[in-house]
């Protein structure tokens, strides 16, 4: 069985999420090709169980390397990715 290599990614939070989680950004070590579920699990271990609750809420904007992710179920992370987790907009 092929061993998946470790990758390093950076996760950034914005607005209300940043305040609720009390963190602006974290660096994580994952395995190559990790999906959204794996990312949330890793964040929960690093931050707190509250993370699961906040990240499972309806309506999040996710971007990887400044490109919006339109199909979260197809997310496959690689080394150096910067993932932005944002609440739905409320500007204007």
């Amino acid at each position, binding site marked *: 069985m092929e061993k998946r290599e470790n990758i390093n990614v950076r996760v950034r939070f*914005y*607005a*209300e999420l940043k*305040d609720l989680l009390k963190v602006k950004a974290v660096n994580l070590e994952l395995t190559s090709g990790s999906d959204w579920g794996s990312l949330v699990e890793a964040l929960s271990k690093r931050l707190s169980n509250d993370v699961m609750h906040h990240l499972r809420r309806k*309506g999040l*904007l996710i*971007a990887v390397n*400044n490109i*919006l992710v*339109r199909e979260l179920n197809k997310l496959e992370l690689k080394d150096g990715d910067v993932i*932005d987790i*944002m*609440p*739905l*907009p*409320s*500007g*204007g």
Partner: protein
Amino acid sequence: MKVKISDKLDNILDLVQEIKGSSDNIGAITIFMGVVRGESGGEKVKALNFESHQELAPKMLKDLCEEIVKKHGVIDVIVEHRVNEVKVGEDIIYVIVASRHRREGFKALTELIDRIKNEIPIWKKEITDKGGKWVSPDKGHRPRY
């Protein structure tokens, strides 16, 4: 076309002159100015504080403006949105649409404002005497992505 997300807005009259200069075929200029209201949900508001995604927000705003121009057949668009603290009575956003006729101008303006509020990664926090509270998106929010 011009989009700007910054802690300072340009002068609105200068922006109108700027957009007028984009074509001789402009017959209508429609403008929306968003202003900080001093009350929200029965509470006195002292200020709003806006945060944006520095890379994504301007890019998405530009793409949105291009889409609106094409869709409604208007001539030009300028959008400026303030970030950081904006006090009561101060301007938050200018959305300016130049068109041949008012009909398409009003339609473009309305859609553009709605989609800016629902789609562009900018967030607002109300500052009151009780502290700060992030504002939820508009009810019935359905971003198009």
